[in-house]
């Protein structure tokens, strides 16, 4: 308990930073992942190929490597200078959106064919069919796996701590400089994540109950 209380000035801001990192990356991944999913079901074969190539490559690359690229290699390019936090957001978004894309796509597949056919019969365009008929319905069925993906994103955000971002994954280092027990500090960090994951699981369950559709 002492380790936690003596270092509240570390735990508080660092966990807040983790939550901030999580929220920004989550919004980014949801937007980018949905765009990727739309590419993957689009009528234009080239777009489908681009989407597939992106997902295949990113899903088979370790996240740590994505981080290593954006933190060590990207700055050599002199395109736009980014700080460590932005690099972490970009890495997490690039990585997670590939998984969001697959979840959204599996959701699109759960919508009955008749829905899209009816929409087509009414003369809606592809964008309208997807945006107004299919995606809203598929959203309900993908909420549980979507939040599971976001939980994974939350846990993945600790990797940023290994790349100079002052978030929960980095608390250990600061604690050891202060001479407190790293073991105890790490156990508190673990507990923090258990609580955060429990909160997300709770949201998941209540949304699942409220939004479950009888088909």
């Amino acid at each position, binding site marked *: 308990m002492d380790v936690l209380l003596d270092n509240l000035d570390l735990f508080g801001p660092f966990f807040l930073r983790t939550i901030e990192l999580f929220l920004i990356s989550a919004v980014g991944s949801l937007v980018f992942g949905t765009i990727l999913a739309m590419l993957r*079901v689009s009528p*234009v074969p080239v777009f489908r190929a681009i989407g597939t190539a992106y997902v295949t490559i990113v899903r088979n690359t370790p996240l740590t490597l994505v981080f290593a690229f954006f933190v060590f*290699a990207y700055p050599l390019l002199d395109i736009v200078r980014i700080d460590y936090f932005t690099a972490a957001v970009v890495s997490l978004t690039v990585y997670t959106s590939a*998984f969001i894309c697959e*979840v959204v796509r599996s959701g699109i597949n759960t919508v009955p064919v008749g829905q899209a056919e009816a929409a087509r019969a009414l003369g809606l365009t592809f964008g309208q069919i997807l945006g107004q008929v299919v995606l809203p319905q598929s959203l309900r069925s993908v909420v549980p796996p979507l939040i599971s993906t976001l939980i994974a994103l939350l846990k993945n955000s*600790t990797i940023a701590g290994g790349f100079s971002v002052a978030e929960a994954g980095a608390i250990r280092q600061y604690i050891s400089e202060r001479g407190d027990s790293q*073991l105890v500090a790490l156990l508190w960090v673990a507990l923090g994540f258990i609580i955060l994951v429990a909160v997300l699981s709770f949201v998941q369950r209540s949304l699942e109950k409220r939004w479950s559709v009888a088909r």
Partner: protein
Amino acid sequence: MSNVLFDVPGPKSRVRHRIYAGIGILLVIALIAFVVFSFADSGQFTPQKWAWLEYSQVQSDLANAVLATLEAFALGAVFALIFGAVFAAGRLSEHTWIRGISTFVVEFFRAIPLLILMFLFYYGLPTVGVDTSPLFAVVLGLTLYNGSVLAEIFRAGINSLPKGQSEAAYALGMRKTQVMFTVLLPQAIRAMLPTIISQLVVLLKDTALGFLVTYPELLYYARYIGSQGAFGRPIVPSTIVAAGIYIVMCLLLTLLATWAEKRNRRSKKHIETTNNKADQVMLGNAAGGGFVGGGV
């Protein structure tokens, strides 16, 4: 699947689609060209930065780094499969206390980021007098995290089997263990094989976390070579090489999973499983690692 959303294009749409395709290809080429030119512009593709690949010492070190990655993967995979089988059986047990303990363990290790687990074993344990090594921390972390996920996958597989399977086995007078080992498990493993292999891909990717606890694996070596002044600090080339190796290794496993899935679907022994819980377990954890992942 995708033709659900749009009609077969007529002549006008085909022309339009071709224009879109052209614009799309141009955009992608422009993006790739921009990145390649920026790399070239800052001198990342000069021969000096690739020369390290020609040294036989570097080549054998690189091979050793890949072997270290595969070693962590193999150990982690074997232990995680065992851990998963034991705790899946525990969660399906009829004794409340075994079920309780197993549920607690599985949920506990699934909620903690894999990197924090590795930190605990590598930096935390020595402070209470337990000797550890980077390999130990990496393998133990991989085992506990991926083992918990695999336990859920096994459990979902067994739960997805039609109830009649176990009922028929009990009606024949089989004992609990017989029902589990001769009737349920073989079918569940067959049904879940693609998912299990996909989780092993996650495990393989997660070995890269070893980089952060000083385990000398592939990414660690790429970073090391990338910081060598003698080769002009070739961090971009070494990252590209490491990424290529990782992608090839993971793709091979992914292909294996796809093949297993196709074979499953063709097989006459295939039985329709009843729920999609298993898919959900997978979707959520693919990102793992941490997937999402947790792992990573």
